[in-house]
């Protein structure tokens, strides 16, 4: 349920380059990996922005920069109207409190030697103002209850829980500081199909209850559609298309989005012989050396001269109602999953 008003998160021209070094003893920088290369968007209270794209396109790097786990090369991230790059001391701490993360792998993202109570309560060690020492145990038990776990299991260790339960522990930890924004990086990908639905329902329930805004990164496009209000499609460090879920899924305007959607197998065999499918050839080019002009042009069946020379900006194109970055954007009906 996207609503207007002030955005809780404003991202402008965000860039993250990693140095590409050669040599072991005398390191020499020979270039850079352009993991995130100019991303802008707003996120509103209670809204979910889904982010999709092939492996290596920069989704997790974007998440880490938003979380201030990586310093951006350039560009800005504003939380509640304040630039996180300019904030210092107490203010920075408060801003960090407001954005939390749920990670992909419930098996490795939890410290095996800590009890569930310590894992969920750990953020309170840094942000003591949220829960004074005497209150912590009660707070953690409340959180366990909120995510559908037994509060009596507070002293158990991660290995005593299943994958889906571990993901709930990760979610409880993300909620501990009562943030407004949660970045979910592939939160259900490692789970069994029968458990995925449980966790997605939980995330949606918590969103309604606490007015959370989500950045939801996932490779399962039908899950992303189910949970997202808007969806951004990433390719080689850039958004190539950004719009409401129905705009992206029913009226995609960028050839890459069209190909991506048509590659998703439809969970219904009826009419499968007649299904139209765009199969992209090859892999995405290296982010260390992206193609000139439009980055998608090496795999695009619509590419023309101009695509190599001029970079298509992310803007509303004639005949479409949402942002796309293609000189020849046109909406195309795709038959696809869910």
């Amino acid at each position, binding site marked *: 349920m996207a609503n207007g008003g002030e955005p809780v998160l404003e991202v402008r021209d965000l860039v993250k380059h990693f140095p590409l070094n050669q040599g072991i003893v005398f390191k020499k920088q020979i270039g850079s990996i352009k993991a995130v290369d100019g991303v802008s968007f707003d996120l509103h209270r209670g809204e979910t922005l889904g982010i999709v794209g092939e492996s290596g396109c920069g989704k997790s790097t974007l998440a880490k920069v938003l979380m201030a786990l990586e310093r951006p090369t350039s560009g800005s991230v504003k939380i509640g109207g304040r630039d996180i790059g300019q904030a210092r001391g107490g203010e920075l701490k408060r801003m960090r409190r407001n954005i939390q993360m749920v990670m992909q792998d419930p098996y490795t993202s939890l410290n095996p030697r800590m009890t569930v109570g310590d894992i969920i309560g750990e953020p309170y060690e840094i942000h003591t103002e949220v829960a004074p020492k005497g209150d912590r145990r009660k707070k953690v038990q409340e959180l366990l209850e909120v995510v559908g776990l037994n509060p009596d299991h507070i002293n158990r260790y991660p290995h005593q829980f299943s994958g*889906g339960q571990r993901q709930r522990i990760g979610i409880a930890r993300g909620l501990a500081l009562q943030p407004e924004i949660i970045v979910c990086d592939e939160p259900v990908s490692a789970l069994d199909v*029968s458990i995925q639905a449980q966790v997605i329902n939980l995330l*949606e329930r918590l969103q309604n209850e606490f007015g959370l805004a989500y950045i939801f990164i996932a490779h399962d496009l039908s899950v992303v*559609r189910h949970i997202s209000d808007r969806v951004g499609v990433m390719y080689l460090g850039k958004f190539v298309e950004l719009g409401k879920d129905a705009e992206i899924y029913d009226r995609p305007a960028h050839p890459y989005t069209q190909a991506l959607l048509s590659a*998703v*197998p439809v969970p*219904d*065999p009826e009419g499968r012989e007649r299904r139209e499918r765009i199969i*992209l050839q090859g892999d995405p080019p290296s982010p260390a050396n992206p193609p000139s002009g439009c980055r998608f042009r090496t795999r695009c069946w619509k590419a023309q001269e101009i695509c190599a020379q001029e970079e298509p900006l992310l803007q509303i194109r004639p005949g479409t109602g949402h942002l796309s970055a293609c000189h020849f954007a046109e909406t195309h009906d795709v038959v696809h*999953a869910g």
Partner: protein
Amino acid sequence: MKKTSADVLPAVGGQGNEPLLAVDNLHVEFHTRAGVVRAVNGVSYTVAPGETLAVLGESGSGKSVTAQAIMGILDMPPAVIPKGEIRFKGTDLLKLSEHDRTHVRGQRIAMIFQDALSALNPVFTVGWQISEMFRVHRGMSKSEAMKKAVELMDRVRIPAAKQRVHDYPHQFSGGMRQRIMIAMSIALDPEVLIADEPTTALDVTVQAQIMELLAELQRESQMGLILITHDLGVVADVADKIAVMYAGRIVENAPVYDIYKAPAHPYTKGLLDSIPRVDQKGHELYAIKGLPPNLLDLPTGCAFHPRCPLRQENCVTDAPPLYEISGTRGSACHYWREVLDGERR
């Protein structure tokens, strides 16, 4: 003279109506310190030439162990096969000597593994690894075998095969490594190919490429394909028939169109119902409640009973057999009629 696989097994055709490959009442146990893990508890399925059987089920349901038993690559011990047959063209592979079995493995029945990176040897070039198949099994010279490797890499559409044949696995992307695995598996023209989650780690775009490649290879050679997956979309796309596994058993088997139209087991129905659908946006997803079973301590009666919305008293005590619904369909649920007639969400 060296024995060839043709001496061990008939080259063409089966005996009578015997399918190409038939797994029959297979049981596999692992004897571990924690106890006996009953990983496979009476699995039966068949595959015919040119046919695609999809084996569907969540992790730990026994899909891979069944496949490893077919290939004869289980470590025994800890694995034990107390019961069952695996017939390839009528011959029970479990009764063959290990020596005879090596003529089947990789030559007549081949397998593609879930994780292509760890299945390839990092210290040899991909060309060397593919050509090894021809050197070892066909007695070709190094240069002859290398030429065949390039041909195969072409066939699985690896660009610039002639140059890339000298590259090492880590120099390839995930999708390309999976193509190399496929090249190795089809090198000796197997009659059955087992693909164990061949696209699980890959992007949908690459998955589409790999599935298209497998379908083409199958069309050319009429291989029987056993596709192990947990992806209901992939299954709907390529399978002729489906076997759904739960807790080491087949709980439902059916032609692909039937099962998507009307599942006959509550677990299958639950899986299909939990797929997000556009018209359900804004509503809770249907979710199968509870957790997957613990194989060290299986529930009594029907193993699905703790999670089943249709459970009746007898489900807790009586394990349902695989009831025959029609000549091509079965369900291991006492109440399969009710499930079949029930509403789909």
